[in-house]
C-alpha cells in the first residue's frame, strides 16, 4: 500500500480483461450464458458416465484351484494370499464391457472375449486376482502386461498374442509357459524335477533367474546369437555357431526351452 495519500494511482485494465468485460455486457452473451452453464453440467455428468467401472468379487475355493482368464486388452496381475478364496478385481475402461466370471468345481473362468462378443470395442480391462498359493493359472490377453507372483501350483501359463511384458516372480510350478511377440519375459523361480518350461518371444529379452543348484536340460535358440548362460554354462553344451545351445545343467531333470528371435536370452543365478 502506498503511504502517500495525495498520490493518485491509475489502474489500467489489461486488454484481455477489457474484452471479457465487454463480452459479458453484450446482450447475446448474457442470453446464451444459461445454455453454456447447462452444457458444462451435461458434459460433467456425461464424463461421470464414461468413468471407469469397477468389479470386485470373491469366490470360496479349495487350495488347488485353477484360474483361466482370457482378456482382450489390459493388464493382468495375479498374486497369492493365504486364503482359500479368490478375489477378483477388474477395472473396465468402457461402460460397454461386460464380465461374467464362471466358477465350476475347482476352477474360475473369466472370458472377456466370449462375454463381450458383438459388443464392439470394449477397451482395456485391467485385472487383479488374489488366489491361493497352490493355484494353477492360465492367462491370455491379446495385448497388455501379465504379472504373476508367489505361485506354487501345478502350472502357470502366460500368453500375450501381441505386445506386453510378462513377469513371473517367485514361481514354483511343474509347467510354465510364457509367450509374447513383442515384450520382455522375466522368470524368477525354481525348476521342479520333471517339469517343463517354455519361454518364447519374437522381439524382446528373456531373463531367467533360478537357483544355482537347478538341474535341467536346456534348448536355447536365438538367431541373433544373444545367449548368455552365465554360471550355468558348462563344457557339455553343444552349440551351433552361438545361435543354439543344447545341453544339461546338473542331471537335467527338467526340460527348459527358450526361443527368442531377435532379443537377448540371459540366465541369472539367484
Amino acid at each position, binding site marked *: 500500500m502506498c503511504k502517500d495519500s495525495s498520490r493518485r494511482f491509475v489502474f489500467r485494465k489489461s486488454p484481455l480483461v477489457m474484452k471479457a468485460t465487454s463480452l459479458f455486457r453484450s446482450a447475446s452473451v448474457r442470453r446464451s450464458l444459461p445454455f453454456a452453464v447447462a452444457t458444462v453440467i451435461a458434459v460433467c455428468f456425461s464424463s461421470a458416465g464414461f468413468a471407469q467401472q469397477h468389479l470386485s468379487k470373491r469366490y470360496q475355493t479349495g487350495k488347488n484351484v485353477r484360474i483361466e482368464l482370457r482378456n*482382450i*486388452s489390459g493388464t493382468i496381475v495375479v498374486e497369492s494370499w493365504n486364503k482359500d478364496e479368490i478375489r477378483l478385481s477388474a477395472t473396465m475402461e468402457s461402460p460397454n464391457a461386460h464380465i461374467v466370471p464362471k466358477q465350476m468345481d475347482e476352477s474360475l473362468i473369466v472370458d472377456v*472375449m466370449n462375454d463381450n462378443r458383438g459388443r*464392439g*470395442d470394449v*477397451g482395456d480391462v485391467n485385472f487383479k486376482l488374489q488366489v491361493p498359493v497352490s493355484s494353477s493359472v492360465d492367462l491370455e490377453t*491379446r*495385448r497388455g502386461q501379465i504379472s504373476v507372483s508367489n505361485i506354487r501350483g501345478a502350472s502357470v501359463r502366460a500368453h500375450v*498374442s*501381441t*505386445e506386453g511384458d510378462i513377469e513371473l516372480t517367485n514361481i514354483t510350478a511343474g509347467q510354465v509357459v510364457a509367450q509374447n*511377440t*513383442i515384450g520382455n519375459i522375466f522368470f524368477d523361480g525354481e525348476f521342479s524335477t520333471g517339469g517343463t518350461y517354455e519361454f*518364447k518371444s*519374437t*522381439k524382446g529379452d528373456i531373463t531367467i533367474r533360478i537357483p544355482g543348484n537347478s538341474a535341467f536340460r536346456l534348448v536355447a*535358440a536365438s*538367431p541373433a546369437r544373444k545367449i548368455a548362460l552365465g554360471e550355468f554354462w558348462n563344457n557339455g553344451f553343444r552349440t*551351433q555357431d552361438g*545361435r*543354439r545351445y543344447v545341453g544339461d545343467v546338473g542331471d537335467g531333470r527338467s526340460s527348459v526351452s527358450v*526361443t527368442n*528371435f*531377435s532379443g537377448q536370452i540371459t540366465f541369472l543365478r539367484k
Partner: protein
Amino acid sequence: MNCEKCQELIHDLLDGTLSRADEFTLNTHLDECLDCQSVRQDLSAIVGFCRSHRGEYETPPNAQALWLRIRNVVEAEAATVKVKAKAPRKSFLADLFGRSWELSLPQLASFAVAIMLLVSIVTVVGIRRFGNNPPTEQPQQQASNINERVFQRQQVINYWKQRVELNKARWSPEMRDTFDRNLQVIDAAVTQSLNELNRNPHDDISEQMLNESLNDKLALLKEFSDL
C-alpha cells in the same frame, strides 16, 4: 499261421464268429507279429467307430432296393464291356468287373487299410528317392521344397488374413496399430529365416525359426479373426 491267413481271420475275430481253436491260434500269432497287431488295431478302430455311429446317418427309404439297383447297373455295365471286348472267353479284367462286389464291413476296412499302406510305401519310396539325389542338386531341391512348403502355409495364412481384414474395421485404432506392428515383426522373422535358408538350405535353426514364425503368424491371425 502266416500273416495273410491271420489278416483274413481278424475280420471274423472282430465279428465274434471265430472258433475257440482259431481264436487261440490267431492270438498266438498276434502276440508275435507287430504288423498284424497293427492291422487288428486299425480294423478294430474302424469297426468300433462305425458301430458307435450307427444310426447317425440317414438311410434311404428302401436301402435293399437301392443296393439292388446299383448292382444291376454295375452288372449291366460289366456286360457291355464284355460285349465290346469281343472276347470269346472271360478275360481277367472282365471277370473282375463282372464280379458282384458285395463287401462286408471288415473287408471294406481292410481294403482301406491296404490303400493306406500302399500310399505310405509310395511316400517312403518317394522320400528315399529324394534322398538319393546327387549332392549338387540337393540344396536347390531343398530350397524349392522349403519355398513350396512356405507357399502352402501362406495359402492358409492368406485365408485367415482375409477373415481378419473383414473384422479389422471394428477394432479400436490402438488395437489395429498393435496388430499391424506385431504382424510386421513376425513377417520380418519369416523373411529373415527364408533368406537364411536360401543361403543355406541345411540350416535347421533357420528352418525351426521359420516354422515357429509361420506358426506364430497363423496363431496371431486366428486369434484376431474373431475379435
